[in-house]
């Protein structure tokens, strides 16, 4: 998957744990873990919005496009 989720980087920058972020977002830690580890197949705009609001960042800070080497 050439879309990389940099949620862990942003969480480290804001010094926020997975538990705290999931609690503030209102989703389960396991679902957030799926997103963090890059196992998720899609992300809702509402989820992205709440991440951006809580971590005070842009969607581009969370998601990155990295082409796969041919």
């Amino acid at each position: 998957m050439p879309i990389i989720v940099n949620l862990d980087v942003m969480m480290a920058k804001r010094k926020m744990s997975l538990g705290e972020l999931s609690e503030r977002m209102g989703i389960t830690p396991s679902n957030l873990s799926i997103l963090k580890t890059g196992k998720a197949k899609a992300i809702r705009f509402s989820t992205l919005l709440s991440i951006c609001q809580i971590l005070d960042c842009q969607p581009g800070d969370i998601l990155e496009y990295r082409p796969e080497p041919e």
Partner: protein
Amino acid sequence: MKKTSINILCCLILVILGASILMPAFTLGSVFVAGFSAGWQASDNPEASPAIETIPVDVSFNPEIGTLVTGSDTISFTNNETYPMIMSRAVIMVPEERFSSTLSWISMALYIICFVLFVFLMIEFIRFIININKGCIFDHKNIKRLKRFSYYLISIALLKCAAGMIEDVLFYELGLHIDGYTLASYWIIPWGTLLLGLLSLLMAQIWSRGLEMKEEQELTI
């Protein structure tokens, strides 16, 4: 309620599958027992002349042009009424020695393989029902089972076709002839089995797409 109706449907399918295998299994069993007892008797009394074994052959009579009009054959009923008749299908008993033994064995082997595949197919179906009853519906195992189920069905249909063609060759080698008819060994392409196999394969593909969508839904955060 839905689970009960699924179970009832599955049981019905199982009963039909079982019933369809009963007759061939009985024939196969009786032929085996007859052959075994003949062999046993021959070993007990080696000097006795061996009995002439016959093989039933299902023959299809295809009337040639004009046979329907002239209809020289007649059938008499017990109330003395007689009607013109044309033949369409009969079973004739042909001495075993008239057949090519290699081809006969191949044909028999194909039917035995069909039987074994049918048993595997039933096992696969029972496992499928048990899994559904456990609540595992959209499951990779179920898709694999459905695919195997369809491959078995398609294989059975193709093997039956091959066996039928071999029987055709065996029949033509006999060189039998009746005026006014073209004779052929009676076998039909198992369209039903083939269609069921392809439908199962289609269902497995749809099921697989459903599972993909379910996983996608589950992994949407």
